[in-house]
């Protein structure tokens, strides 16, 4: 089974962009990573990453996603602060 690394794009919105001081990073993850792995990497490796909650709302490719969703190469992850739409 292929276990090459995955390249994903992480985007941060609203308050999360303010907390991290950035709106976007590229991340390389081991094959068969899931959303939770990407969140952990962001929290451990980005400056101020620990300011992001352990279980933030995340979207993958513009759809709400659960923490155990498998990631694919090229996915766009979005870290979403508590919503205020409407």
């Amino acid at each position: 089974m292929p276990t090459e690394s995955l390249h994903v794009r992480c985007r941060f919105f609203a308050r999360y962009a303010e907390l991290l001081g950035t709106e976007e990073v590229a991340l390389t993850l081991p094959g068969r990573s899931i959303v939770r792995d990407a969140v952990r990497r962001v929290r451990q490796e980005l400056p101020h990453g620990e300011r992001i909650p352990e279980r933030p709302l995340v979207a993958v490719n513009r759809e709400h996603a659960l923490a155990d969703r498998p990631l694919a190469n090229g996915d766009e992850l979005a870290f979403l602060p508590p919503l205020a739409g409407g």
Partner: protein
Amino acid sequence: MADLPAVTRDPIDAGRLLAAVAAPACGGTALFLGTVRAGPDDGPVIRIQYEAYVEMLEAEFLRIAAETTARWVDARVAVQHRVGGIPLGEPSIAVAVAAPHRAEAFAACRFAVDEAKRRLPVWKREVLADGTAQWRDNAGGRTPSRPSEPSGA
């Protein structure tokens, strides 16, 4: 409805949504407008900035519209969310549903609005008269925001 953008920076025109859903077989039309509201404890909010993950906002709102017509198959649905700076009192969201009978129109409109409030990736930044700003979520929570931009409208 194809000719109405789901996301706009311009003022929402309720008449356009009503026209978009009108159809001869539809006897009842329900429209909901969500408006930027000044609550009793809101302090001197001078404007509200709606920020969004725009690509997902558009996709998610159209998914909600499609889910609504899947549940109420005779309903016609139009949705729109405004982003950017919105003056107090102007609508930020609109959902219009036309259906053969009023019960379906009300139920389908309510469904789409509830889903929108729960799912749309939008954030509300209140700019106060003293130049500070705060994020405001749908549960009523407030969090300070950095004054990262000039406070002019």
